C-alpha cells in the first residue's frame, strides 16, 4: 500500500490505480512475421524484477489516464513517475 503521484491529478491512494504490468514492451510491428518463440516472448515472458522496475499504471478511479512509473519492488518505494511517450529516467 502506497501513495502514487499521478502526473495529472497529484498524490492519491494506490487503491485508485490499477497496474498494467511491465512497461516499454513494444508491440511487434509485423506480427505475421514472428516465430512462436518471439510471440511467447512478447505475450508471456516478463522480467519480474526484484528491485527497480519500470511499469505502466492507470488512474482507474480518477482521470483514467495511463502513465509510467519506476518502482522498487523490494520495498514499494516509487522513484519516478512520467507520462506516456516521455523518455524513461536513467537509473
Amino acid at each position, binding site marked *: 500500500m502506497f501513495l502514487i503521484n499521478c502526473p495529472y491529478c497529484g498524490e492519491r*491512494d494506490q487503491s485508485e490505480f490499477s497496474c498494467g*504490468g511491465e512497461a516499454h514492451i513494444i508491440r511487434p510491428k509485423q506480427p505475421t512475421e514472428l516465430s512462436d518463440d518471439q510471440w*511467447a516472448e512478447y505475450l*508471456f*515472458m516478463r522480467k*519480474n524484477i526484484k528491485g527497480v522496475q519500470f511499469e505502466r499504471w492507470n488512474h482507474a478511479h480518477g482521470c483514467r489516464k495511463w502513465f509510467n512509473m519506476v518502482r522498487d*519492488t523490494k520495498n514499494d518505494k516509487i522513484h519516478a513517475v512520467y507520462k506516456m511517450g516521455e523518455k524513461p529516467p536513467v537509473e
Partner: protein
Amino acid sequence: MKNKYSIFSLIKNAFSQHENWKQAWGDPEPKREYEAIIIGGGGHGLATAYYLAKKHNMRNIAVLEKGWIGGGNTGRNTTIIRSNYLWDASAGLYDHALKIWENLSQELNYNIMFSQRGVMNLAHNLQDVRDLKRRTHANRLNGIDAVWLNTNQVKEFCPIINTSPDIRYPILGGTLQRRAGTARHDAVAWGYARGADEMGVDIIQNCEVKGIKRNGDQVEGVETSKGFIKTNKIGVVAAGHSSVIANMAGLKLPLESKPLQALVSEPVKPIIDTVVMSNAVHAYVSQSDKGELVIGAGTDAYVSYTQRGSHDVVEGTLKAILELYPIFSRMKMLRQWGGIVDICPDASPIISKTNIKGLYFNCGWGTGGFKATPGSGDLFAHTIANDEPHKLNAAFNLNRFVSGDLVDEHGAAAVAH
C-alpha cells in the same frame, strides 16, 4: 526408521521430561559436489528431495534454503487442500497430490494433521451456478468426488452462513468436495525434512544461492553464500523468487510475483468445521485447531516482493466475510501477512525441463501451491531423475507458452486467481 515416533517413544521420552528427543534433521556444511541440488527448502523443495532419495535412489543431494525451511509460502498459506479442478490435466495433477496426502502421516511417520473436513465452493449468480455444476460433472468424470448442494443444503452443511436472498451476493448453491480439507503446513515441511534427512539428504539452511554456473548449455554448479557447490542437476523450487533464480541462469519465465494475503482472528470455540470458499466475492474461511479463523484474501494487482500486501485487499475480503457470516462481526483479527506468489498467465504451474541441460523449474503455483505439495515433489523428482516429465506433469511444461497449449485454469478452478 531410526527414531520412529510412536506412543512408546512418547511415553519413554516423558520420563526424561522430553529433553532427549533427537534432532529431526541435521545442520550439515555443504559438500563440494552433489548429484543434484534443490534450490528452495519449502514444502515442494523438501518433498522433491524426499522423493528423489526414496523413489529414485539419489542420496547424494542437497536442499539449499536461504532462510529456514518452511519459512516462505509453506508457512504463509491457508493450508487448504482440494482437487476439484476443471481441466483433465489439473485434475490429474491435484488429485495425484490428494491421494498422497491421504496416507502421508503414516508414510512420513509424522503427524501432518491432515483433516478431510470438506471444501465447499459457493455460487452467487446464475453463471456461477452453471460453472460450478459443469465443474462437478467434469470432476466426477475424472474420478474426483464432487456434489452440488442447493441453498438449503449449503445452510445445513454450514449453518452459520447467511443464506438470506436479500444480501448483495445471495447464495444460490454450492459444490462440495468431501475428500478435501486442510493439513498443518509447518508439519508438512518438517515431516519431509526429517524423512529426507534420514535418507542422507543434506538440508542446508541460511545458504543463499547467488549465481548459477553454466558451461555452454549445461549447468555446472551454484554459487552460494557458503561458497561454490558443484552439481550438474539443479531443481529450482523458489516460488515467488523463481524469476530471480532464472535471471541468474539467463532465463526469462512467464511469471509475475505478487503478494497474497491471509489473516487469522483471535481464537474462539469451534464454529466452522469445514472450509468455505467463494469465487465471486473472493473470501474463504476455515478454523484452525487452535480456534483461529483462517481467512484468505486476494493478491495485489502489481509485482512486489514485500511480503506485506495492500490494505484495500484485506478490506474487500473482510466485507465479503461479514456479509456471508454476520456472526463474525465483532471478532478481532490478530495477525495479517503476505506471501510472494509467482503467477503464470494461465494460472497453472510449471514443472518442467528448460533449454539449459540439468536445469529444472517447479514454479508458477500462484495462489494455490500448498495443496499440491506431495504431488509436486513426486512429479518434479521424476522429471529431474529421468530428465523427462511424468505423464501427469507433461502438460505443465515451459514450452506451452510457445506452443499455445495452455492449461487455462483462470477462473475455471474453484477460486478466483
